[in-house]
């Protein structure tokens, strides 16, 4: 019994010491007062030097936390335990958060740098009038392929994936919208199509792709493609640029039929306490020079038109990541189709997964 009591005492003591250390560390770094800004962003999604620059310019202390999925971020903001002042969700999540009243409206008069954002990326279906969100980065869904393994063959179209030579060579993302979208696009339909006949046609077309599909995987797709486990993969452009820097034989293409256009956006969630500072930070990130530096670091595509002028030509002119206006017209943002349609997409995707070779 004595031993047990001692055991619990030691644990209680250790916890107390750790708690004290945390709080003293926080005060020594100036995190205690009201002059702070808590940012909640994806992992490795900002140039940390810019945070230091912002702190120096404004005297505001930045607390930076990261998440790895929109859903994880949503849960934390719903719970409201931490007072996040800025979050960076993807477009479909903004639509959802907007409807659940989890976002605060932005005061655009405090964001003069908003004028630098490309008009193409403003006022989109997930947030009409940019009332709640400002685009941070954008990208596409496309095909990564290994030039060496394909002996120099070029892929340009979704339909190239149905080539019998690619037997057992394709890795797909485990996402209903992405895979069904590929089927719909290959038939010339919209990514947001909800007509049952079109969706069934897309699913049946996908079924004929199964001999070429090696696996349907999650985030492991990056590792598998970089390690040449397969020669072709359906991926997001951000992941593509990441693995292309790891393996030089990889190339990325946005198929000519069109594809998905996605956005990560800065928002001020309901949990925010430092709204003034949050606006300052958003405006700071919209500054063309800052955006250019950040884009070069992160490697995604920036929506900041003015920033492109401060970036190296080979990045700006890379049509894989900054598609030509003609192709951009064919890119579509995922609309929020509602639970029922989404369930139908998932049902068909499940049937496709169960379709045996």
């Amino acid at each position: 019994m004595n031993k047990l009591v001692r055991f619990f005492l030691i644990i209680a003591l250790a916890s107390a010491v750790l708690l004290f250390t945390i709080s003293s560390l926080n005060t020594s770094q100036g995190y205690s007062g009201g002059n702070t800004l808590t940012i909640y962003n994806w992992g490795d999604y900002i140039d940390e030097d810019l945070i230091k620059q912002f702190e120096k310019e404004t005297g505001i202390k930045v607390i930076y936390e990261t998440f790895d999925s929109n859903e994880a971020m949503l849960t934390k903001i719903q719970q409201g335990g931490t007072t996040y002042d800025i979050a960076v969700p993807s477009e479909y999540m903004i639509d959802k958060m907007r409807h659940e009243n989890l976002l605060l409206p932005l005061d655009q008069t405090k964001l003069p740098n908003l004028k630098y954002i490309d008009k193409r990326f403003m006022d989109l279906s997930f947030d009409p009038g940019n009332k709640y969100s400002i685009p941070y980065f954008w990208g596409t869904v496309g095909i990564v392929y290994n030039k060496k393994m394909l002996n120099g063959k070029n892929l340009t179209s979704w339909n190239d994936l149905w080539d019998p030579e690619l037997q057992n060579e394709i890795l797909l993302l485990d996402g209903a919208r992405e895979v069904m979208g590929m089927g719909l696009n290959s038939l010339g339909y919209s990514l947001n199509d909800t007509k049952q006949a079109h969706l069934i046609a897309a699913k049946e077309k996908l079924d004929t792709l199964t001999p070429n599909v090696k696996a349907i995987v999650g985030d492991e797709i990056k590792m598998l493609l970089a390690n040449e486990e397969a020669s072709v993969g359906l991926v997001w452009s951000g992941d593509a640029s990441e693995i292309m820097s790891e393996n030089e034989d990889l190339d990325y293409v946005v198929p000519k039929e069109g594809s998905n256009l996605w956005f990560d956006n800065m928002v001020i969630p309901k949990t925010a306490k430092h709204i003034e500072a949050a606006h300052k930070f958003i405006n700071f990130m919209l500054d063309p020079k800052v955006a250019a530096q950040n884009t070069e670091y992160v490697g995604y595509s920036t929506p900041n038109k003015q920033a492109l002028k401060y970036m190296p030509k080979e990045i700006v002119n890379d049509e894989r990541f900054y598609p030509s206006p003609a192709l951009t017209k064919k890119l579509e943002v995922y609309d929020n189709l509602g639970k029922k349609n989404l369930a139908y997409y998932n049902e068909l995707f499940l049937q496709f997964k169960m379709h045996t070779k």
Partner: protein
Amino acid sequence: MWIQMENKLTKNLYLFPYLLWIALFVIAPILLVLYYSFFDIEGNLSLINYQKFFTPVYLKMTFSSFWYAFLITAISLLIAYPTAYLLTKTKHKQLWLLLIIVPSWINLLLKAYAFIGIFGTYGAANSFLNLMGIGSQQILFTDFSFIFVSVYIFIPFMILPIFNSLNELNPTLLDAANDLGASKWTTFRRVIFPLTIDGVKSGCQVVFIPALSLFMLTRLIAGNRVITLGTSIEQHFLVTQDWGMGSTIAVFLIIIMVVIMVVTNTRKRGV
């Protein structure tokens, strides 16, 4: 009389944490799952989920879950029984047993990722095949790799109960069988196996039931080429947010598990 009442009172007091636990963490969740299963995706009360379960898609999924769970259990048993038998004959049996159990302390995901590396095109398994002159094969994302890794993960849970029942076996019974002229095979068939059947049963239960609802491995090792009920539940809750359908599949899984428990238990009384 007074003491008796006090006794009863303390007894009830001791019972309280157990009952609270069962009510909060066993009965309540099952009732909640049952409750959610009666709602369609838009939150209306309906039986559509149950109707949907009896469509070819979900019946096929149920069948394939059963088939893979059966294969995993059968192969585990075939390997575990001789291993457990051998272990009881060794000198330091507890040490050998520990060595078999140690891998189960390592996180499942970590082991799955390790197998992606081993079974990959440029992994250790394929370098070995190349060395043998067989050449590279696709191992990852096949039925073989899925069953192999599942068996690897579940086998300690099969060995443990069989080992225990073999260990408790009275050796004089074997001597008696021998004295009465039974061959080794007859001794095994008529004495050893019937006396250790309880261990085999609990081993099978412990393996079959979780194997029925495996989900992470189906993506990591089988590349979604194997779809089980577990995969589907995960998808309905996390992606589609169709909690009703997810719950309905869970209800059927619970029913199936109860049936398995009841069936294996009544046979025990018969022996």
